[in-house]
């Protein structure tokens, strides 16, 4: 019973956070100055009718929310309006239909752009995360096991240095090195190869992925290493490890059967919390390697002041991170028998 209550509580909280993100996303783009829709609709060079048409197109003819005409500067409006005929509720209604507006730059639906790019980001982040987790954990395990030896100090310094590297700079260095050593200079595929056989294309994508994935792995490996090391050190000084040793189990058996599961619990949480930072890393890596993912979309949207795209990406990222956290919480509850009966 209590397990379901735990589950419901977590889901409820995540729903609340998502709602908060939705509201934040709406008001952020209306409160802050510099909204090009507004400046566009007030451009004196445009005809009155064109301005009005633009306002209708972007839904600006409607009142923002009941009682408020506009939010910046705050201008009071009518309160007896139908609440469903305000910008805020139209925004929410559109969201439920998966509509995120239109790109200023290409005039395409933002949702289409995001879907197209989402998979590229997932591919990159997925490969990078898996490698970073494996490398970080293996090094972390060795560091903790061989504590106070040169293996440990070496791993610790490696972890701290990797942690301190700005992602984009490491990307630049690797790209600089790679472009002189036969690696592709960014992008996802070699242009003009779309008619080549499938196996060639897969290999081509893989080749383009090597450097961005490597950047990703190095930067995030450091953190997993440090966490795994300290978590495992804590577990290995627990009494039940001494029991296992007294039972005559070998160091390998103790690590495998008694230490790792317990030590990995924090990693589960970290992976999810990291997803937010992971996205930050993806923005930088995709920018450097011209990888056509969500992060690249952010960079392009900034340069083109393409706010609907920026808004859409932010929403997608924030909601994914909230959901990832929920999944991590549930995984944790599944892995740790103590949570279920709390």
């Amino acid at each position, binding site marked *: 019973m209590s397990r379901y209550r735990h589950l419901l509580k977590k889901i409820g909280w995540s729903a609340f956070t998502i709602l908060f993100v939705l509201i934040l996303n709406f008001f952020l783009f209306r409160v802050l100055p*510099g909204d090009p829709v507004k400046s566009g609709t007030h451009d004196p060079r445009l005809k009155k009718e064109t301005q009005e048409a633009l306002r209708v197109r972007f839904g600006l003819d409607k009142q923002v929310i009941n009682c408020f005409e506009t939010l910046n500067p705050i201008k009071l409006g009518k309160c007896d309006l139908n609440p469903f005929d305000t910008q805020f509720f139209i925004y929410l209604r559109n969201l439920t239909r998966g509509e995120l507006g239109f790109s200023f730059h290409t005039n395409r639906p933002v949702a289409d752009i995001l879907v197209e790019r989402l998979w590229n980001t997932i591919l990159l982040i997925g490969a990078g995360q898996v490698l970073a987790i494996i490398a970080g954990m293996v090094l972390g395990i060795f560091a903790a096991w061989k*504590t106070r030896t040169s293996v440990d100090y070496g791993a610790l310094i490696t972890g701290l240095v990797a942690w301190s590297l700005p*992602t984009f700079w490491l990307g630049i260095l690797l*790209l600089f090195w790679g472009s002189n050593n036969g690696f592709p200079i960014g992008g996802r595929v070699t242009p003009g190869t779309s008619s080549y056989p499938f196996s060639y294309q897969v290999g081509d994508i893989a080749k383009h992925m090597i450097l961005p994935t490597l950047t990703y792995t190095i930067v995030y490996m450091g953190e997993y290493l*440090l966490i795994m090391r300290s978590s495992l050190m804590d577990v290995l000084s627990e009494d039940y490890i*001494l029991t296992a040793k007294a039972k005559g189990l070998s160091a390998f058996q103790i690590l495998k*059967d008694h230490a790792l599961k317990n030590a990995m619990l924090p990693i589960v949480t970290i992976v999810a919390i990291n997803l937010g*930072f992971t*996205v930050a890393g993806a923005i930088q890596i995709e920018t450097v390697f011209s990888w056509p993912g969500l992060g690249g979309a952010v960079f392009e949207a900034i340069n083109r002041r393409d706010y609907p795209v920026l808004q859409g990406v932010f929403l997608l990222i924030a909601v994914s*991170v909230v959901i990832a956290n929920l999944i991590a919480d549930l995984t944790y509850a599944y892995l740790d028998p103590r949570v279920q009966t709390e």
Partner: protein
Amino acid sequence: MAVQTVELKPSTGSLSRPSSWTTLGKNRIGLVGLIMLVAAVVVAVFASVLAPYDPKTSEGITSSDIYQRPSSAHLLGTDDAGKDVLSSFIYGSRVSLIVGFFAAFISIVIGGIIGIVAGFYGGRLENILMRFTDTMLVIPDLPLIIVIVALTKPSLLNIIFVIGLLGWTTTARLVRSQTLAVKSRKFVLRARAIGAGNWHIIQHHILPLVLPLLVVNAILVISLAILEESTLSFLGLGDPTVISWGQMLNFAFGRGAMSAGAWWALVAPGFGIVWIVLALTLLGHGLEQVLNPRLESHHLMPGRPAVQQEAMLGISARSSRNPKPVVLDIQNLSIHYISEDKPPARAVENVSFQLHEGELMGLVGESGCGKTTLMMALMKLLPAAGQIVNGKVLFNNQDLTAMSEEEIADVRWSAISIIFQGAMNALNPVRTVGEQIAEAIKKHVAIYHEAQVDERVSELLELVGIAEEHKDHFPHQYSGGMRQRAMIAMALACSPQVVIADEPTTALDVMIQAQILELLDDLRKKLGLAIIFVTHDLGVVAEMCDSVLVMYGGVTAEYASVDTIYNAPRHPYTQELLKAFPDLSKPEKRLSSIPGYPPKLDALPVGCRFAPRCPLAFERCFIEMPALHSLNGGDHIASCHLVEN
């Protein structure tokens, strides 16, 4: 990037130790970080003096100056505008440090206030604040910062505010848990009891203990802020009017440094960022160790090999009172704890005893007298600092101290097993009790099939009175008494000849204690086990044991049969110990305690270790350590000058 490593455990113990600076001095990682940071600050402050050119003017620069290789005129070459990279690099340190420090300052103040208020006032306020913090923690920082900066004017001030206003979440959580820990401490409760106001308590009692933690956290928040600023600048969202490292990289990357092969324009600015962030990371790591000193040791570290010296102080136990064969023969065992900067702590010295088949030996003495150390040494389970410096542990005439790690692994549990004190921690919380018992069987009794192992586990649990259906439960689903009984079942799993019971009933209520002791005694009679029973409870010893070893300060005070110990003790410590213990047969007896404390292992007295507390001590006791004296032909041993002759 990583915020999680920032989170220290709330510690309340050794926060304001005077030796913090000396500890940091010894902490090489922290020291290197500090030096690197000071160097960066010096460069930033004296930028105008150090920079060979003024990066703000483009006077005298021609198009031929673009992307010039490093030379004597331009040590780090020139950039896309033909300006000196070194000069821009030096000036760039200012922006990083300014943004880092001011943004972190904002974050720390907000996080500190929210954390202290939430932790101190508690209740609904805490609930709301922490919910808000959790919500903000989940929303990814950098995308939000990018959105806000993109929508507002990208000035340095805006960047500082945006980074600062979004970076407080981890600080708030950290400060809250620290405040909670401090709040319930005695001096705060006392201050409240004498009528101190909330503000007074926060200012004088909470803040001083939260502050050190806040400083460590601040260092990491600064490094995150610096990384965020450089990312913003690299993405083209930096303040266009100032030179920053991120912006230098943005220009170089966006304006052809790659294709021009101008590595210097790409390497230098990034190096600066790494320098400062690494400095802060190392300093933070070092300070964390100072604040939260952790024993960097664990149970998988290799033990120190046993060494043998000449046999010390002559005699060893050769008891003839028990006709059964000897299973365990401990001869002149000495154990030291070795540390780098201190002389070794002589935890156990020259202890000898013999354990016969089916014998129950009591091991008594105050806490810290070396009982557990001695028991751990029998199975070579000493912590990494512990070393057997002399003596032998003969099990069926095999010396266990001379065995390799692989050899001893076979002896552990199958020949000698331990019932640990505090079975809650001695059982792995994430594996079922049944699995943990089965594991020992599979390790040592290889011939069993899966089904046989399963049957054996049920049988063992039944033996200690635990129903079979609890086999697949986790330790936290057991009661305290059940866990201890499960531990006993586990100890018996491989039919050992010797079981060490290290205070098996501490922290259990009296009824359960009695049950467990009865169970142990039963099993001994049924299975012919030899048991070493470590305890403080002299009543239990009198009732159950055959022989008794009394230890004091790491040495044998007295070793004899239980009758001799109770009726004719010769060592003053044994005598005092018995006086401190109620005897139901002599209800009129006055109880007396022994004044003082056992000696600390790193400050042992020169003479007899008990002399400072001994009512019978005379001059010689303070100068000369008494030898072990054999009485009744080896059946009774005591280390006291008074029993000489």
